[in-house]
């Protein structure tokens, strides 16, 4: 049995302790470039992949550079409920958009029927606020980035997802990614009042699988 459908790739990233203003400035500027094929979002994901491949992951804003300290990557799945919501959005107006990025520390394996994170930590990042992230389209992908400030409670980021609602354990969940170590790398750990972290998701609706 072969399952088609959107493919979801997610990165959880720790940044340096002085990088929060630069991260926020980066996405405030990024927001001025629109929400379709945004070059700063493309560059952001390129640098995440660079870091994952053991190269330097460096971003630049206003002549200042800042570097990815630590990264974890996982490939997971959109949920059935999330895809159904997308289909409804395509047909009918007035439905809540995908707006919030949430993280948690639950380790239960992701399944397409799940409707929430298992052990979520609040608050969720509001991706419509440029200093908290972005929600854009690049080619046939949806790209969601949530910025979690240094003040976010201490957590080992083992799961993340995109939601329609702001409150933990509520709203429709688009996808669920789990960072459990192994191929996904060691999950990143965030300590309150030290440094910010980001969670970035790419959901590709026209991915191509090849082997040979």
């Amino acid at each position: 049995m072969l399952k088609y459908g959107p493919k979801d790739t997610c990165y959880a990233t720790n940044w340096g302790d002085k990088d929060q203003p630069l991260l926020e400035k980066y996405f405030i500027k990024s927001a001025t470039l629109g929400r379709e094929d945004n070059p700063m979002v493309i560059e952001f994901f390129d640098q995440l992949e660079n870091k994952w491949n053991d190269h330097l992951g460096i971003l630049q804003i206003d002549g200042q550079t800042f570097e990815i300290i630590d990264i974890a990557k996982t490939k997971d799945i959109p949920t059935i409920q999330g895809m159904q919501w997308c289909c409804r959005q395509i047909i009918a107006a007035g439905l809540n958009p995908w707006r919030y990025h949430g993280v948690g520390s639950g380790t239960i394996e992701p399944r397409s029927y799940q409707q929430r994170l298992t052990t979520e930590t609040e608050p969720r990042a509001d991706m419509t606020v440029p200093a908290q992230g972005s929600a854009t389209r690049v080619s046939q992908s949806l790209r969601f980035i949530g910025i979690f400030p240094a003040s976010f409670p201490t957590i080992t980021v083992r799961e993340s997802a995109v939601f329609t609602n702001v409150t933990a354990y509520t709203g429709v969940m688009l996808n669920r990614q789990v960072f459990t170590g192994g191929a996904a790398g060691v999950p990143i750990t965030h300590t309150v009042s030290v440094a910010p972290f980001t969670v970035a998701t790419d959901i590709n609706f026209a991915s191509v699988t090849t082997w040979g």
Partner: protein
Amino acid sequence: MGLIQDNRPRDWAYKAVFKEKDLPSLEEMARRIRETHDVSIIEDFNQKCEQKLQRQGEKAVLDNGLEIEAVTKSGDLVVNTGLQQCLNIILGTSSARFSHFGFSPGNVPAPAVTDTALLVETVAQRVVLSWSESVGMRLYFGGISSQTSGSAPTQVGEIGVYNGAAAGAILLNRTSWPTTTLSPAQNTTSFSTIKTAPIVVSCVVQFCPVV
């Protein structure tokens, strides 16, 4: 080289011909779908088309009593620009939802993901979607094309769903059939005569198909 698997949404469509007297009932069926969002009517339509295909020669009658005279099916492509428009709608950066069916007699070359329009379409012949609904991870689009109501090309070789009636509207998908005519054939002499068979096109876009 081994498998190359494109995981984009799958798309297939039925093109069914009815008797000319059935046009008012077909339009009533479409009105009911629009007003009640009763997708079981669409599912019955698609199921009966499938049944007609599987059991050639046997009658296929819809739940509302209409008999399908002939049917063909084609599985084709959601194109890049259409998929991008879907994502724009999901994100809220566009509100131009899919609203029209385009018909064209052309069907060569085969659909490609880079297509942005039908081949030899007369834009004026686009029809407003008779229904557009979502069920689970599927999108259903339907259109009625009838020379009786002055809206059809003389042959239907390919169809596509657009987000507008004007040239330049965004194409969601392109479905083509190897033969351009159905039996009974559409009348080609005049739009004013009432001896033409209405065609109903029903298209399904599935976001997470399993094969």
